[in-house]
């Protein structure tokens, strides 16, 4: 506790580093996955067999990305991007890849979970294609997308700490530093702060979900009769 207090300036800096890198990775991953996932979903009902296959290929390729272990990806990234070893953008982009990989499947699952009967009834009411996508499909896919985004958020915050091994400064630096100095308090502080940050992100997402999707948290009347 004393150690944390005397080093609060450094800790604050690491928390900030961790926040912006993981926060941007989550946001960018989601922003990229939404159109790609949507395209995969739309292709699935195409009359052309080849296009339908492309949809499946998109989803499988994105999940293969997720199987690449993190440390190797972190060290391959500088070579691919041609940036300096210590540039945080390397780790950021690697995390975007993971976020994207989980989220594409999440978006496709979310869109598939929208009840066809509701889409049908919206069309029958006279929603045009565009209107229906924006004001019916997207909001109704929201809850499942949010669930996937929460998984992305937690794992991104946790994965980033491995970036400390390649010298990118974040809360993970407390692990490498604490280990080298044989100082468990520093590591424990890092663990607590990382978990706390993941929790804060999660609470923010849940709160945003409540705000944007109020219908999702009401108690239903029960029974279908």
């Amino acid at each position, binding site marked *: 506790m004393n150690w944390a207090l005397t080093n609060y300036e450094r800790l604050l800096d690491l928390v900030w580093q961790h926040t912006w890198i993981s926060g941007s990775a989550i946001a960018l991953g989601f922003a990229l996955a939404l159109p790609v996932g949507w395209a995969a979903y739309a292709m699935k009902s195409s009359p052309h067999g080849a296009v339908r296959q492309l949809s499946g290929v998109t989803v499988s390729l994105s999940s*293969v990305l997720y199987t690449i272990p993190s440390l190797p990806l972190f060290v391959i990234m500088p*070579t691919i991007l041609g940036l300096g070893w210590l540039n945080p953008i390397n780790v950021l982009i690697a995390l975007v890849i993971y976020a994207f990989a989980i989220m594409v499947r999440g978006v496709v699952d979310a869109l598939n979970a929208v009840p066809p009967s509701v889409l049908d009834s919206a069309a029958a009411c006279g929603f045009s294609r565009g209107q229906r996508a924006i004001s019916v499909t997207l909001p109704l896919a929201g809850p499942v997308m949010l669930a996937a985004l929460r998984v992305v958020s*937690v794992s991104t915050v*946790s994965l980033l700490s491995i970036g400390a091994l390649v010298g990118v400064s974040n809360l993970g630096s407390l*692990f490498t530093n604490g280990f080298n100095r044989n100082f468990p308090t520093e590591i424990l502080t890092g*663990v607590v702060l*990382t978990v706390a940050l993941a929790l804060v992100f999660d609470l923010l997402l849940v709160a945003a979900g409540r705000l944007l999707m109020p219908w999702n948290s009401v108690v239903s009347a029960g029974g279908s009769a």
Partner: protein
Amino acid sequence: MSLLEETVAWFSEPAQWSGATGIPWRLAQHIGYTALAVAAAALVAVPLGLYIGHTGRWRNLAVLSTGALRALPTLGLLTLLALQLGIGLSAPIIALAVLCVPPLLAGIYSGLEAVDPATVDAARAQGMTEAHVILRVELPLAMPLIIGGLRSAVLQVIATATVAAFIGVGGLGRYIIDGLAVSDTARVLGGAVVVVILALVIDALFAAAQRLSAHFADPATPTKERHA
């Protein structure tokens, strides 16, 4: 020489293919750690998962702790345990095992839960004992999801075992950690490539196993439409 050429050159050095620092031995170590950790995790996850999936009890607890464990930074757990338990294999194996319990557990209980309750009910009505129900009905039907959980657990451990090189254990992560320490980029990239290939191969094997088990659980799998 470009980095690519350097990396290729690194692979072609004879030193990489024999001895205690060669790729075959490090690969064997890596797979060994993974197998050990997954086996240790299975000792906890299998009985617990079967219990939760079969009875439905403790489910919320399992969901909650699975989520919480996911937030736990792997490197933090590794370094902390290494300092507490000292150098040796016990710290990394325990850390790896702890991290792979959640996906394993989730695969088992959600697999059992996904079995149609009417099928289980029918099995019981025909006079099967609870053990019969688990072994002959629930487990075979849940197998695709269980293997799915095993798949993510194993991949998670392969990735984390690489990171574990930082606390001094062997395996393929050594190339990356040692290469980074002396700025030997070819070694770092070489090691990274081997780990990535290992992960992709294992993933492909599990994908095949999952398809196979899906076929066993339900021989009509390819024409799944009729269940809809």
